[in-house]
């Protein structure tokens, strides 16, 4: 047991942030050693929401285990499901109908926007501005409505199944998505007026939590956390899956490496996601929304690895199969776990107040880290 509060011999003080703290967005416990206001060390203590998802999956079939993964990174629930479905399809060599691929990618990108919206609102709230939270939720609400109509759920959709998607899109889907795109475009300037251009906000973000490209790679960072340091790591670009290689979009890169760079990456990613949806929404081909699959899925003996780009970075699904109806072992390489490990490195030497900005721009989702 580490001492959780008090003074050490060197004049350092140990304080706790969490497990219940507004800035940790979940049950993350950080034991921080400070000297005056300067951070000496940050030690994350995990496990407050550990549900042992990997062990649970060992007794679930290949159709069932997908539903558990919505509860990992609940803000990228669609993309988690997508990764699992792709991994099972890779093992069974199922050809997914084009219509299903289009629907999947549109859903993924809507999820990415919804996730970044929530992050943006919460990020501004962490730094003391409460209003942006409501603006972000206004747009996020439109996406949740679209999800509810087509998938039947707002947060844990469980819409992806091996072979395609669970049911066809709602007749009103295309109209609603186009209305959302209009809404997003007309409101987006507010985001920059309220937060991005704000000089107080910029002062709290620039040169805070600087992460070099080498360290980002060495610490296994991925997603916007690494792209803010100029590391090209977008799985949609470098190891494309589904129809991503036919789409026109840019990988957003910033070179600053500080909190502001990571902030700008996410803001611009929302535009790229809109660009992707615009290319697809009017061209969804006719056809099946699901490939014909057997009722009981049995993956051949072997190992299958599938990675996808979630809103937080690279998610890997590693299935070891012994040929049965349930996986022998499953490992989820969650992006948040590796991104959290860099927190101690970037926080050392900076002021305690800046820690909130660093945590915010790493976009930690605790159920994703604990699994």
């Amino acid at each position, binding site marked *: 047991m580490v001492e959780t509060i008090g003074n050490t011999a060197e004049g350092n003080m140990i304080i706790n942030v969490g497990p219940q703290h507004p800035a940790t967005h979940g049950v993350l416990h950080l034991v921080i050693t400070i000297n005056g206001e300067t951070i000496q060390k940050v030690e994350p203590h995990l496990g407050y929401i550990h549900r042992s998802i990997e062990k649970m999956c060992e007794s679930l079939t290949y159709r069932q285990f997908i539903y558990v993964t919505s509860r990992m990174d609940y803000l990228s629930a669609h993309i988690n499901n997508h990764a699992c479905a792709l991994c099972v399809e890779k093992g069974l060599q199922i050809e997914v109908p084009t219509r299903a691929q289009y629907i999947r990618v549109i859903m993924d990108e809507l999820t990415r926007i919804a996730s970044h919206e929530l992050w943006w609102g919460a990020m501004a709230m962490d730094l003391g501005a409460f209003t942006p939270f409501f603006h972000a939720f206004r747009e996020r609400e439109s996406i949740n409505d679209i999800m509810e109509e087509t998938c039947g759920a707002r947060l844990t959709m469980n819409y992806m199944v091996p072979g395609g998607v669970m049911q066809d899109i709602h007749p009103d889907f295309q109209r609603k998505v186009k209305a959302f795109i209009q809404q997003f475009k007309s409101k987006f300037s507010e985001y920059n007026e309220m937060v991005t251009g704000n000089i107080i906000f910029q002062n709290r973000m620039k040169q805070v939590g600087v992460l070099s490209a080498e360290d980002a790679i060495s610490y*296994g960072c991925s997603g916007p956390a690494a792209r803010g340091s100029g590391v090209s790591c977008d799985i949609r670009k470098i190891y494309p899956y589904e129809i991503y290689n036919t789409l026109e979009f840019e990988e957003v890169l910033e070179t600053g490496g500080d909190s502001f760079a990571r902030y700008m990456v996410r803001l611009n990613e929302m535009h790229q996601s809109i660009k992707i949806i615009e290319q697809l929404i009017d061209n969804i081909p006719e056809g099946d929304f699901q490939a014909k699959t057997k009722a009981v899925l049995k993956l051949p003996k072997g190992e299958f690895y599938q990675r996808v780009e979630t809103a937080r970075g690279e998610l890997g699904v590693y299935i070891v199969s012994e040929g049965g109806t349930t996986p022998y072992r499953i490992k989820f390489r969650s992006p948040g776990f590796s991104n959290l490990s860099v927190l101690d490195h970037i926080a050392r030497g900076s002021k305690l107040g800046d820690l909130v900005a660093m945590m915010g721009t790493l976009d930690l989702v605790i159920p994703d880290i604990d699994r």
Partner: protein
Amino acid sequence: MTNEDLKIKLTELMPSAVIEEGGEWLTLNIEASNWHSMATILRSEVTVCFDYLFCLTCIDWKSHLTMVYHLSSTSYRHNIVVKINLDRNNPAIETVANIWRTAEFHEREVYELFGVNFLNHPDLRLLILPDGWEGKNPLRKDFEDPINMIKL
């Protein structure tokens, strides 16, 4: 680099490693005692440059444990899998946290869930499990907890 080119290159660099084909990526089967020196080669050799350790985990085969390392190169975009078999009763392997910093967290996770002892690890403590959790490794196949049931 394609898998064939990579295979030729890796055979040159590490003659003792057994390279397995068939999967999506090449698999290197090596001995635990060689791991640290080979990891150094994989990371520092400029022609392969595996600088990104994107997945580190362990599998319990009931007779032995297998450490699995997934490596990728951010400059060449090629991937390999490294597998190392360990004795189930006394699993121990050299840490690679000084080569890939991300290994520090991942090894702590494997340490508590599988009971693998990582030699020379800078900070080998429990990460996810509560303090005082001793002797039981939840992801091993023989782990049973009748009170907090994990199996569904």
